Each structure stands twice: as C-alpha cells, then as structure tokens.
C-alpha cells in the first residue's frame, strides 16, 4: 500500500523491539512495520492453533468525548451508535456524500477511571489523515464548542500502543495481566482495565474482544511509554502457551481466510457498501450522516458487482487485480489473493457481476497471462469452532 504520510516513516513504540528480534520491516501506510519475524506460515498457524501477538499501533485511534460526542458520531458513521451501551463496540463505515467508503472502523464506548465516558474510533492507518480531515470538516469550532453539546476530539494514535492478542489461547495469555474476567467478556465488548504488571507502571489500558483474524482474541491498548514492558510481559507469560510475535504478513493471510475486507483492496471510495456486502452496517433510518441519501437511492437497485470468495483449484496463487472470466468474457477482478496456510490452496477475494456470485460458480482467473480454474466459495473460507462466550 502506498504511503499516505509525507516525511520519514513513523515508528511504533515497539520498533526497536521488532528490529532487535529479527523482524523484516516494511513501509505500511507510512509506518515502518514488521511483515514477519521468521515465517508467515508459522505465525499464521500459531494464531490458528495457540496464540500470537501483533503490534497494531499503526492503527489510528481517534477519541471523542463531551456531551455532544454521541450525536456527532451518529451523524458521522453509517451505523447507529447513539445509545451504544457502555463497553460495547461496533463495526461501522464512514461514507462520503456519494455513499463511497471512506473507511471501515470500529467504534467503542468506554468510561475512564474517573467515570468520564468517551468513544474511541479505530481507523485504518492509511486513512487516518483523511478521516481526521473529514472529522474537522464536520466539526467546525462552532459545533465543537456549542454550549451543552461540546465535542472534544483528539488523535491519540501516537500516545497509545495497540496489540492484537489472537488465537484459541488468548484468554489464557491476557487474563493474568488484567483485572476483569475475560471468560465472560462477549465478542465485540470491551473494558477499561487495570494492567496487573509492574511494567505497566500502574497505568490502565483498554481491551476489546475483537480482531482481524477469524480467531477468538483481544485487542489491548496501553500507553506508549509502557508498551514495550507490557509486550515483553505478554511474551514471557505466553511462553508456555506457545505465543509467537506475528507480523502484517500473517495478519493478511488470517483476515483473508476469515473473509474480512481490507481497505485499499476490497473497500475504497469507488466501492459502496452494498457491493461489499456491508449493507447491514448502514442504518439508513434515524440519524442523517454523509452519504445517507445516496445510500437510500443505491439501496433501491441491485448492485452492479458483488464481493465473493474464490478458491483456486490449482496451486498457483492469484494476487490482487487479476481479471476474472467466465466463458472467455471478463466478469470481474480480484482485490486480494494469497496461498491459504490453513486450507493449503490459493484463495482470493474478487468483485464479480452478480450473476456469477453464487457459491459453486466455476470461473477462470487470469494470473499473469495464464488461466487458472477457480470456484466461488462461501465466505468465510475459514470459520473457527465456537465455544464459550465468544460469538
């Protein structure tokens, strides 16, 4: 993905740790991030079978507080978040006036140690500047300072580190570090927590039972100054569980198996939510948000293309931007593709014309000039066995 930030690459608080532990660093959306430590496939399997931790401090974190915050977000996001319960998290989109997708985000509602409520919007690293500009455009000083409806908006991305703790053993790894009972925390719930480790220097953190891997897991935010200590504590506690640090490479193969879209690939300003299969995230009744009128119109007619999963029948992987054909005619394009370490075959996501979107449809993918047989698969490609309270 192209860099969206000018100047030198940004570094997360764990940059030195990554380099010291042999990570291969790449430019991702203007950040220097580990793509892998040793093997992407090993990191992938560790998360599917045990637990892995990943530095995701590049993700943008935008904080909203004040009496006007709830209504402001309700008028910014496609999903109705006014009335969102304490410690609850929702997946939502931010759309432009035409209904195109500006970003896909998580919004969480928390209360700090002093009882003050606040919202955290987690945005894609590559979209952080764009969303900040979008927020400012819709939150001029007149509105931000409206008496009784004030909204305080802060970009806390650089102040807080964020880790993904993912895998079937993630409860076992995180539980010793936090003062809430994780067994009872539901999927898409979160909490402000105390971190029970001297490395945290009595600072608190935020956890959520969320992730981007298709596995059970959590995301943990801690202050940048204690990030390395908490990360090393996780590595230490996780040793008997088989924890491995994992990079963006495994994050991509995991999310693809889970059929989760990635902004810049499956999502963009040129794609609208119904094409991406995200109509359920758009609540068109109630609050007015940018793009609502456009989406009300788009909802009336069937989408011109649909996002589907493709299983390739050979071993040669399709990557993004390969043409998808049926009977020699172009019917779509891939947006992501890789070799699935779990299914041990190539998988891809593609936009195809709706008449070719049914699972089982036989298609061909042009992989650098050579046709490869493919079949529309039901998404997700991989679904974990559910147990306990995780949905």
């Amino acid at each position, binding site marked *: 993905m192209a860099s969206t930030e000018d100047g030198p690459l940004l570094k997360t608080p764990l940059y030195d740790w990554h380099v010291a532990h042999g990570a291969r660093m790449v430019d991702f959306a203007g950040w220097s991030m580990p793509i892998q430590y*040793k093997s992407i496939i090993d990191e992938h399997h560790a998360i599917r079978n045990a637990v892995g931790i990943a530095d995701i401090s590049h993700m943008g974190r935008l904080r909203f507080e004040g009496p006007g915050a709830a209504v402001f977000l309700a008028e910014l996001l496609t999903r109705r978040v006014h009335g969102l319960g304490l410690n609850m998290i929702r997946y939502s989109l931010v759309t432009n006036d035409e209904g195109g997708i500006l970003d896909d985000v998580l919004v969480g509602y928390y209360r700090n140690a002093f009882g003050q409520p606040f919202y955290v919007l987690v945005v894609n690293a590559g979209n952080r500047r764009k969303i900040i500009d979008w927020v400012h455009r819709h939150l001029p000083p007149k509105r931000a300072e409206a008496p009784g409806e004030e909204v305080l908006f802060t970009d806390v991305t650089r102040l807080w580190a964020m880790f993904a703790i993912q895998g079937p053993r993630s409860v076992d790894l995180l539980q010793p570090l936090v003062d809430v009972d994780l067994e009872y925390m539901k999927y898409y719930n979160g909490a402000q927590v105390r971190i029970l480790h001297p490395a945290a220097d009595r600072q608190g953190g935020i956890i959520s039972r969320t992730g981007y891997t298709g596995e059970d897991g959590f995301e943990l935010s801690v202050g940048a100054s204690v990030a390395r200590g908490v990360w090393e504590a996780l590595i230490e506690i996780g040793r008997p569980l088989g924890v491995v640090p994992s990079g963006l490479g495994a994050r991509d193969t995991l999310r693809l198996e889970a059929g989760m879209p990635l902004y810049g690939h499956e999502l963009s300003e040129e794609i609208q939510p119904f094409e991406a299969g995200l109509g359920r995230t758009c609540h068109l009744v109630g609050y007015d948000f940018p793009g609502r009128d456009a989406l009300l119109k788009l909802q009336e007619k069937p989408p011109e293309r649909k996002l589907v999963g493709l299983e390739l029948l050979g071993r040669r992987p399709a990557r993004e931007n390969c043409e998808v054909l049926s009977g020699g005619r172009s019917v779509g394009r891939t947006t992501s593709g890789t*070799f699935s370490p779990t299914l041990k075959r190539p998988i891809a996501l593609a936009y195809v014309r709706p008449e070719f979107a049914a699972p089982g449809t036989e298609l061909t993918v042009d992989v*650098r000039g050579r046709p490869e047989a493919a079949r529309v698969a039901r998404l997700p490609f991989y679904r974990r066995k559910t147990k306990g309270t995780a949905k």
Partner: protein
Amino acid sequence: MTPENLLYSKTHEWVRVDVDASGGKVATVGISAFALEALTDLVYIDLPEVGREVEAGGAFGEVESVKAVSDMYSPVDGEIVAVHSELAENLERLSEDPYGEGWLVKIRISDESGLEQLMDHAAYQKQCELEMEDE
C-alpha cells in the same frame, strides 16, 4: 556442492558449469540460500519444459511465497535439458539443500558469453551484504 565453488547472477541464481559426454557445456541452475531466506514460505514453483530455449536474462520460471511471486532468470543462452520436476511437491528441499537437491534446471549452453556476467562467491557475498544494508 559447496556454495564457494559456484557462480552467481545478480538476480540470485547460482550456476554450476559441467562438461557433458559430448563435450558441450551444461549449466545447472538453482536459487541461492540468501534469496531463499529472503523469500521464505514458498508455496509454488513453476518450471519450464525440457526442450525450451532460454536466453541469458530471460525468465524461465517463477517461484511464489505466501506474499509475493518472483521470476527466475536464466544466466545463459541455451536449451533446457533437465528439469527438477519433483520440487513442485517438495518445496522444502529448496531451503533444506539449496545447492544440491534444490537444483531447478540444467541448460545446455549455446552461448557462453552470459557466463562472463556472473559473479564468484566472494563478489556475490558482497552484493548480498549491500542488499542487507539497503533494507
């Protein structure tokens, strides 16, 4: 096979030149350990058919890791006379024994001038060190 006795291309193929029964020169080509280490997580290899003509600097196949595809380039002009086709199902052999069981193809050399462009082991090591620094 010891890596010290091989020749190397800028694009990380190793080359061993032998003389066959008819007195012609045959190049055995593989991928260097340095390149395999950089690729990691190999999932697919595409090798040419026996009999195909190749040119120095021209792609003769592709190797894919989880995250990317890379072309493999012929170091010489000539004809493919042998292909290590079992590799496709045993990709781990490439990294386990890159200079032995990891060989890819044998090429009967028709024009030796391509060999002059190749590096010896010391020069190749130097190139790898420079690439490491660039990262």
